[in-house]
């Protein structure tokens, strides 16, 4: 939606392996990764990013039992990708590459744009560490692997109105996933304290994008990489 006008988007091309959309109302072309209008009457406009998660169906269903799931379109099911599509695509060639940080073009990253900066985290490393405390532009952030060991969320690791809570460590309890070292409160995968002094407080979730290194780096030329300083 731009200026209150809903737009209907269609797949319309590709730009260095990130796809281009075209809206049927104005004929404007939009870049998928950025939501920016790159050509046409609305050039320069920006779609608003809606916070989204990439979760396992198991985790999503537990969190949103009243939610609705997009159904397969029967005539195209045979063309759908296998569930490990992004991993299989690691073998596909790329047309751009950035030989930096010892990263391969199709290494899967978790990219975060926050506080005016970009930072990328090697997905396998986050999955292995399960809880990552880091900083983006000086602000504390927390990356948390869910109880399914596959879903990941990123939070601004600052509790509104409470100073000094920036250290966290993982616990493995049915109702809680991590604990803060300042108050000992226990927190869940939604980033909310479920037990302790800070019970009821929630961390602000930050948008994160799972992307191949070449694509993330192409659109975030000043990105830094966790563990590669």
């Amino acid at each position: 939606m731009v200026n209150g006008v809903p737009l209907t988007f269609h797949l319309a091309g590709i730009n260095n392996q990130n796809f281009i959309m075209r809206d049927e109302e104005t004929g404007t072309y939009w870049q998928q990764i950025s939501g920016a209008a790159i050509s046409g009457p609305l050039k320069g406009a920006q779609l608003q990013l809606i916070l989204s998660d990439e979760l396992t169906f198991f985790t999503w269903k537990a969190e949103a039992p009243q939610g609705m799931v997009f159904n397969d379109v029967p005539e195209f099911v045979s063309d759908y990708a296998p569930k490990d599509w992004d991993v299989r695509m690691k073998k596909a060639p790329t047309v751009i590459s950035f030989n930096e940080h010892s990263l391969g073009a199709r290494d899967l990253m978790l990219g975060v744009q926050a506080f005016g900066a970009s930072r990328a985290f090697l997905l396998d490393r986050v999955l292995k560490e399960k809880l990552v405390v880091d900083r983006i532009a000086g602000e504390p952030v927390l990356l948390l692997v869910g109880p399914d060991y596959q879903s990941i969320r990123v939070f601004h690791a600052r509790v509104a109105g409470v100073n000094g809570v920036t250290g966290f460590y993982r616990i493995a309890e049915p109702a809680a996933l991590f604990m803060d070292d300042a108050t000992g409160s226990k927190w869940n995968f939604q980033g909310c304290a479920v037990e302790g002094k800070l019970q009821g407080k929630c961390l602000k979730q930050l948008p994160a994008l799972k992307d191949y290194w070449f694509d993330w780096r192409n659109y975030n030329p000043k990105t830094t990489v966790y563990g590669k300083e």
Partner: protein
Amino acid sequence: MQRKRLTLTLIVLACVAIALFAVGYPIYVIRPFRHQGAQELAVALVVARFRVIASSAAALTAAIAFYTYWRSMGLWRGVLAGLGVVITVVLAYASRVNIYELMFHPVARASFSQPSDVKLDGDEKVIAIRINDQARAYPIRSMSYHHVLNDQVGGTPVAATY
């Protein structure tokens, strides 16, 4: 007579060239597994925006010129000029086809089910959003094929992309 032949030949050739460029250049530049330079992409997208108008105008112009001058062309030149007109008409039709949506079909009418009614493995990934207390999940298995889904969640128009 010779001037009429030359006029028709030049008009048809120009129309074929315009239609060919309008349809072919964006396809040439914006194709998978090819590096897209910033400037050529910008030009290709402008051409793509106007390809239907440009190729249709070229086809119409070629057809009118042929109708006006074909009697002066002789048999073989007339056949060749007619072939040029046919090519522009075919290109004008092709300009309306979205080849990307031929490769990855769009979703004409999206339908949704409750999680308990969906046959997805527990470890399958979904893109999840929540707006005004309405939660949606878009399975990556299908989104990596359709790429774009126009939806409405919690009263908000949403374009889910992957």
